[in-house]
């Protein structure tokens, strides 16, 4: 809800409350039989202290996962830790407080001064990022219930060709862009809405959402961790952080003996092969492409921004106000439909169509400006991904790809070098 709408509603509320307050002062009947009036029960929500407990648990799990991945090099430890995460953050906490969704809370709190983010959500957003910045994506390995449930279900992983991985890698970026745009405009929280596993964690969800979760799990039997790799918007952020991480899980504890055992161990195709010694040094075509792609980046950004901003027409329709006002303008006959609850509620709210349209236009404007940022961001990522394809770095050993590696530790397990 935009701030504007909130204030308008608040104004209406004040009036309503005054009317109601007058009614509430009305004295009760005087009972003669000594009847004692019961009072309505109000079960308390989860206490704030328990919420902070969750932050502590997250901190502990993150630290343990990091320790298992970087110090004790124990795949088994990570596995059991992820089972704990699945049980605690998944089935016990019902998948709701989650770092992935916290992106939206942060985005909304930055755009809407009236929204006060809870400390817990902020901590869940920041802690994994900071850990990734120093230790790699150990969050994905052991502290994310969504990752854990998928990881446990990897049964027959198939290797995906690089072109598919790279181009499907654009999806989470678009998803992240949309999620931030929708959250910042107060439209809705799409990440939470389409969290595929939350229904499974709760053992209770609308039917089709359960089907969605099961579909992801079935997909994950072959395409390992499909949500993490091709949808998770938080993964995009962790990927960047992890690329510049100070320390990171390594496949071997000492020198690589190039036994290649690890290559088939990674279900995520996240192990980079050593560069071929015999391969010729990059030729002139590559330098030309490097320059071309560098120059293309601003073009991607501008075109992306322009198109996303132009797309406000349909993007802004995700906002209920915009949708409702367009519906009322385009289908005025719906005013007579008693079953259209939204329109009936609007009509009885006493608000005029003018004010609704005015509110909707404010939202549209936000989408237009926000679109520039979102599209520019998506364009930038596409441009950089492209550029990365012509950047060569010499690698002597088999190394985990710092961006894509989930630090699950399978490769360590396979490595015959043990100390």
């Amino acid at each position, binding site marked *: 809800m935009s701030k504007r709408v909130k204030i308008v509603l608040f104004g209406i509320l004040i009036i309503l409350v005054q*009317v109601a307050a007058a*009614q509430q002062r009305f*004295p009760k009947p005087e009972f003669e039989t000594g009847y004692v009036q019961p009072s309505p029960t109000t079960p308390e929500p989860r206490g704030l202290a328990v919420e902070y407990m969750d932050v502590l648990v997250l901190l502990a799990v993150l630290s343990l996962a990091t320790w298992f991945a970087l110090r004790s090099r124990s795949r088994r430890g990570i596995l059991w830790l992820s089972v704990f995460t699945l049980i605690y953050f998944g089935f016990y906490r019902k998948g709701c407080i989650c770092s992935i969704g916290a992106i939206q809370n942060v985005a909304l709190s930055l755009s809407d001064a009236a929204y006060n983010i809870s400390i817990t959500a902020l901590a869940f957003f920041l802690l994994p990022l900071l850990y990734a910045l120093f230790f790699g994506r150990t969050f994905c390995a052991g502290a994310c219930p969504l990752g854990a449930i998928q990881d446990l279900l990897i049964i027959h992983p*198939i290797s995906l060709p690089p072109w598919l991985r790279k181009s499907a890698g654009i999806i989470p970026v678009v998803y992240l862009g949309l999620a931030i745009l929708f959250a910042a405009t107060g439209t809705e929280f799409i990440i939470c809405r*389409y969290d595929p596993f939350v229904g499974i964690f709760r053992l209770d969800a609308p039917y089709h959402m359960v089907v969605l979760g099961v579909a992801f799990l079935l997909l994950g039997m072959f395409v390992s961790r499909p949500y993490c790799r091709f949808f998770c918007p938080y993964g995009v952020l962790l990927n960047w952080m992890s690329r510049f991480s100070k320390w990171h899980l390594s496949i071997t504890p000492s020198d690589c003996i190039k036994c290649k055992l690890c290559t088939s161990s990674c279900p995520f195709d996240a192990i980079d092969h050593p560069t071929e010694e015999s391969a010729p040094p990059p030729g002139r075509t590559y330098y030309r492409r490097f320059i071309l792609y560098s120059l293309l980046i601003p073009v991607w950004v501008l075109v992306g921004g322009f198109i996303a901003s132009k797309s406000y027409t349909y993007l802004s329709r995700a906002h209920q106000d915009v949708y*409702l006002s367009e519906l009322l303008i385009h289908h005025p006959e719906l005013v007579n439909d008693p079953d*259209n609850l939204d329109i009936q509620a609007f009509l009885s709210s006493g608000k005029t169509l003018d004010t609704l349209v005015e509110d909707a236009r404010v939202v549209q404007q936000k989408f237009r400006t926000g679109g520039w940022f979102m599209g520019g961001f998506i364009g930038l990522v596409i441009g950089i991904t492209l550029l990365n394809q012509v950047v060569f770095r010499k690698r002597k050993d088999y190394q985990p790809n710092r961006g894509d590696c989930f630090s699950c530790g399978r490769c360590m397990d396979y490595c015959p070098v043990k100390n």
Partner: protein
Amino acid sequence: MKKSVIYIFLSLIVIIILIIVIGDFRSTRPDRMSGNPYKLNLDRIKSVDPNLVTYQETKNYRINARQAGGIAVAGEKIYLAADTFLQVFDYAGRQILKITLPEPAGCLEVSKQGDIIVGHRNAVALYSAAGEMKWRSEPLDERAVITALALKDGTIFAADAGNRAVHLYTAEGKYVDSFEGKTSIEGNHGFIVPSPYFDLGVNPDGELWVVNPGKLALENYTDEGNLRSYLENISPEIDGFSGCCNPAHIAIMADGSFLTSEKGVVRIKIYEPSGELSTVVALPDKFMEDGEAPDVAVDEEGIVYALDYDRNMIRIFEPK
């Protein structure tokens, strides 16, 4: 397992995922959601033979106030209490008088001499036609909520919904007596007033009629507070009253007929003095759903003035 089988399986799943996400995203839009499966069905009450309605709306006066209180009509003038003022204007909408009141007034009544009696929450005050305050009664107790006034010769009747009682005042503002309508007869509990809707009126024959909202009845009392007779028809149909606390407001016409206004299913009707429905003034479609029951007044010619709290206007209904 053959690779191609896996690929076909995977693409199928991807398609299912896409269908679910897109389908769900589109499904929660106002024009794609279903109506209320648990709707409270009032159609039977609301559907009324339109031929019963013999009045039509002719005029609206816009009120410039945040919270309207009550209206009265006398001598071709409309008296309105709203917010903390009292306003008098003629039928053309020209203001004749506007005075500031010390506190909001919920009801008012005009005497034959043109004096204006105003009911505050726990006191009654009298203003001259020129807007000068003549007297103000001693305040009643904390529970008092005065919701209606009526005049008969030298007596002022004030309906107090909070105390479930009718108070009597002299024309000079002296408190005389109250009655709660209780008798020793079994089951006669007096006034049952579950909410601040409690109206009364004096008919041309000088009979005091009080609404007993909890009983959905109109009751005729002697000036001493003895029940003389009553009219009752509990029914959701057009000829009866239903819900709690109806009729919310009444006015008595020149021929002794009752003009009634109801809450819940908001409607205005006229009953014969005998208690039979004579005609319908306005049906629920004229008012906001779940709106407040309009305060009503009627002039000598039978023209109905309804104070619509939700739309902030006085609505005039004239016989067709």
